[in-house]
């Protein structure tokens, strides 16, 4: 807490005396947006790592089906891996929990909650979020939901095992893990709902004087659109979760059609429901969710590219309109996930068209970022390397999605490894690299120390190479017809035998990728206490407001009232004495 803030308020009788708080109220039950952001950071990195480990286990089974997992295989017990050989049930559980944890507890909280919480008030010149206590409640309910999800591993039958999409009717008749999945998702949804309304109110109502919408950094725009998507797309999944809970606990049949066959017998259910209802409700969330994953990373990468090319973003106005348009359109593309459910051709044509249209704003944004590089004096520091790698990888992920958006090509590709390859190209080499870029870039603001450059390179290059070795062969396998969700990696089918050797390549690359994360983990904790100290509050010489705060920012963020005078990317302005002109300085 700054001394100015203290002296301005010490005469009030109701002074909260934030500077005298105990350790618990300052770092654990904190309402400060920066502390909450860092709490989210630790938890979401933990969940990312955990979800990643689940996948590493699965990759053993895919590469060497039926072989006992060496060394650690025996530790899992007879229920999941007798003698170190993975049971099919356990494989399904790992798959479902990998998807759920990575998406809902890893990537989305990291992109949205971590960077949003830490940076939104800083970048708009506010002292905190509009609803600080609500913010704390969001974090704790996220934590509760996540812990509940993890606790389902200790159920007698294990956690949910129906994929991250939890399709009915399978999920209606699955074992108890699914009930925990639904409760836990409901809690996580409440958490993200409260976060998103908090973020939107903050962005609209707490902007500093002079911070018009044209002067908002693109990162804030990305967070704003993301928050609207979460606010409006998540409630239908909550509704769907209620319906599925009723099916499971009260014996209703929302998703169970009459005459459902299970294991060769007609199931004892009331019937009359519709299994497709779940798919529509799920994907109504599911598709905007993809943009919830992508947009924060796009915002982070935009900030880093503008700063490290020392240029204004090319077509910044066009990028703003693109992201608004993309947000609207993401609500009317969901059924391109359900082409194979027997929709009519007219409906299919509609969703094909909207899916093709939604690629336009994404292409505009990525193109604008590429064009920004032209003629810039690029600084190849570690955050910039990650940001630069994001562009082609995300573009590649997007382009491989086009064949899936058209029904004619989707029919053979559906549920093959091609889908896995496409989706992971968007999320892993795309979004996750962007999120790493953000961690390296804002680390000095949060800690006052830089992360080590050499270890950063040691993290970046192997990660980039192994990610491509993991996901590109999946596209090949998928085009050859290898189905996803195969317990034995596809060995059952003769036509797969020519491409099974890729399974070993992919798995080995995944394990090397895991090793490549060790430099990051070490760097992260080591640099926090022993990294090179930054000698200014603005080590990257950036023009946006978060660097106008002390390092690390105290309670209340800014030491003086902020007024904004210019665009966020005011770099290399003609006639300016230096190559960046901070937003809050009157003279350029």
């Amino acid at each position, binding site marked *: 807490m700054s001394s100015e803030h203290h002296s301005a308020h010490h005469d009030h009788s109701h002074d909260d005396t934030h500077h005298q708080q105990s350790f618990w109220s300052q770092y654990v039950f904190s309402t400060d947006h920066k502390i909450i952001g860092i709490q989210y950071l630790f938890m979401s990195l933990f969940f990312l790592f955990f979800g990643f480990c689940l996948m590493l286990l699965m990759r053993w089974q895919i590469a060497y089906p039926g072989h006992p997992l060496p060394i650690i295989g025996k530790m899992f017990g007879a229920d999941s891996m007798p003698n170190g050989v993975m049971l099919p049930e356990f494989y399904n559980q790992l798959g479902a929990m990998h998807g759920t944890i990575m998406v809902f507890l890893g990537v989305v909280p990291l992109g949205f909650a971590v960077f949003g919480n830490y940076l939104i008030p800083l970048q708009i010149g506010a002292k*905190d979020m509009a609803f600080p206590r609500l913010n704390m409640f969001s974090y704790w309910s996220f934590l509760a939901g996540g812990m509940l999800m993890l606790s389902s591993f200790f159920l007698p039958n294990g956690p949910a095992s129906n994929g991250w999409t939890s399709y009915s009717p399978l999920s209606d008749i699955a074992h108890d893990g699914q009930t925990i999945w639904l409760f836990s998702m409901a809690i996580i949804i409440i958490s993200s709902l409260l976060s998103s309304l908090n973020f*939107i109110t903050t962005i609209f*109502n707490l902007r500093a004087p002079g911070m018009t919408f044209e002067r908002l950094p693109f990162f804030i725009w990305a967070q704003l659109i993301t928050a609207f998507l979460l606010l409006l797309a998540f*409630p239908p999944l909550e509704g769907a979760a209620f319906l599925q809970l009723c099916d499971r606990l*009260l014996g*209703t049949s929302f998703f169970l059609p009459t005459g459902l066959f299970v294991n060769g017998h007609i199931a004892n259910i009331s019937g009359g429901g519709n299994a497709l209802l779940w798919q*529509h409700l799920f994907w109504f969330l599911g598709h905007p969710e993809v943009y919830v994953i992508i947009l924060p990373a796009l915002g982070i990468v935009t900030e880093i590219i503008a700063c490290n090319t020392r240029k204004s973003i090319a077509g910044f106005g066009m990028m703003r309109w693109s992201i608004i348009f993309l947000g609207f359109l993401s609500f009317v593309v969901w059924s391109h996930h359900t082409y194979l459910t027997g929709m009519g051709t007219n409906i299919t044509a509609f969703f094909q068209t909207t899916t093709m249209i939604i690629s336009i704003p994404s292409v505009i944004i990525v193109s604008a970022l590429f064009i920004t590089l032209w003629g810039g004096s690029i600084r190849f520091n570690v955050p910039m390397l990650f940001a630069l790698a994001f562009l082609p990888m995300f573009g590649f992920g997007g382009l491989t999605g086009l064949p899936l958006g058209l029904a004619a090509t989707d029919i053979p590709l559906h549920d093959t490894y091609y889908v896995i390859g496409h989706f992971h190209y968007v999320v892993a080499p795309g979004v996750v690299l962007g999120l790493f870029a953000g961690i390296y870039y804002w680390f000095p603001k949060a800690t006052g120390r830089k992360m080590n450059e050499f270890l950063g390179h040691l993290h970046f290059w192997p990660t980039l190479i192994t990610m491509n070795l993991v996901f590109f062969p999946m596209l090949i396998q998928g085009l050859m017809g290898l189905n996803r969700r195969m317990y034995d990696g596809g060995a059952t089918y003769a036509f797969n035998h020519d491409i099974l050797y890729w399974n070993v390549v992919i798995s080995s690359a995944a394990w090397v990728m895991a090793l490549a994360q060790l430099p990051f983990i070490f760097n992260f904790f080591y640099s926090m206490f022993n990294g090179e100290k930054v000698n200014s509050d603005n080590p990257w010489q950036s023009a946006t407001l978060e660097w106008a705060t002390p390092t690390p920012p105290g309670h209340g963020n800014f030491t003086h009232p902020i007024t904004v005078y210019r665009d966020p990317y005011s770099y290399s302005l003609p006639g300016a004495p230096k190559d960046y002109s901070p937003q809050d300085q009157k003279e350029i």
Partner: protein
Amino acid sequence: MSETEEFIPYIVKPREDTGLYNAKFGIWLFLASEVMLFGSLFSAYILLRVGSFTWPVQSEIQNVAIGAINSVVLLSSSIFFIRAWVALKADDIAKYKRFMYLVILFAFIFLFLKGVEYYQHFSHHEYPKTSVFLAIYFLMTGLHALHIIGGILVNSYYAGPGLYLRDKPNGKQWFINRVEVAGLYWHFVDLVWIFLFSTLYLL
């Protein structure tokens, strides 16, 4: 909480360019998400009904009279809320309390009548698992009843124990804002019932 008041702006006064104070902005966003929540259930209702071979004539197995009375009860409760808010703005606390008690009383009447309906269904052996219509009926009205209970809790707090909030600096206008926000929620819950009544009883 004077420190918080200065620390975070627009808690009491609306911001000029948005025209809203923070809580009002927040509650509108919350209600937008509620529209999507109930909207998804209404869509589910439509899809289930369109895709179903048999569907009961709803007005025959529903107690339309109680449903209609309940609509009037909730609408009156909303009107009482407005009267209470007007009284609060005029600084007439006794009148404000009287109307808030009426709001809460009518909410309880609504819940009681809803309970009577549920009892009638159960005594006819009509349970959620009996048919898809009854399932979605119990789910939607049950979720709505939970919203009513939430509203009762908030309104009871502001009708009595929460009044001390007026003694804080800026507390009077702040309290009027709080009640206004609670009122927006209450009117929304009322509005949802109008849709529920027409969809689940009359159509």
